[in-house]
């Protein structure tokens, strides 16, 4: 029998995979992929809690997270394309203009 703990542990494992990606990646596009993984891991946790406690609030929050993720991609990818046109690189180090 699958319990709530199974889903929460799976959500934590996926979240940690996303965290490793956020720390390891230097390419900005890959960094966006890792943030998607983080948001999806949280969504699984919300849906599982909402199912096991018979409360739909968790699903509502998952919907709003999906809306936030969609708008984040629209704005972020627009900025990324603009930056690539300007500098010809999507590397995280190319954002570093100040010495320190």
């Amino acid at each position, binding site marked *: *029998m*699958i319990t*709530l703990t*199974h*889903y*929460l*542990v*799976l959500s*934590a*494992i*996926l*979240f*940690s*995979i*996303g*965290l490793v*990606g956020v*720390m*390891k*990646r*230097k*390419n900005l*596009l890959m960094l*966006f*992929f*890792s943030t*998607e*993984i983080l948001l*999806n891991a949280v*969504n699984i946790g919300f*849906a*599982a809690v*909402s*199912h096991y*406690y*018979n*409360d*739909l*609030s968790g*699903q*509502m929050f*998952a*919907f*709003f997270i*999906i*809306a936030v993720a*969609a*708008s984040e*991609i*629209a704005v972020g*990818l*627009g900025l*990324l*394309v*603009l930056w*690539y*046109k*300007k*500098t*010809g690189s999507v590397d995280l180090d190319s954002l570093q203009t100040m010495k320190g």
Partner: protein
Amino acid sequence: MFEVIAFYTFSILTIIMFGIVVLSKNALYAMSALAGGMIFIAGFFFLLGAEFLGVVQIVVYSGAVMALYAFGMMFFDTTRDVKENIHYKKVLYSLFIASAILIVIIMSAPIYSANIEAFYPAVIDGVGNIQMVGLILFTKYLIPFELAAVMLLVSMISGILLVSKRMEMNLTEEDHYEEKGEII
């Protein structure tokens, strides 16, 4: 029994897919694996009885977001491998340790979750998931819903403005503009 098999199959597949996303050197492979992982996550939502959330996951993530990424990738050079050089090993290691502590805290959270009680146990017999989602979304969560709509509108306008600024001078007509710095 079916639920157990489905849960373990989907979780193994999702972890493998997201592992490929994080570790792969090729941006195209990472994007395809991410799309696959999103669809497997929709499988979890169907297992949990959240049909509407699963459909939204497939439509929005695997449809819209992945199409957006594929569109954005046309601007970047994706054929060569992603080169990543890490300068500061110390910072990386301390971040890994901090995140390990965070993971321990997250893993211990299910111990406390036994004491949670639902504030609004909102499931009526004979009303399906999608109908119930509609009922709650347009009563209790009406203001966040409208705010999300405004936010999506703002992000749509900003996305259009950012990418299509001076549309006649984009990368496809690069021959006229030798230096990339002058395009913007």
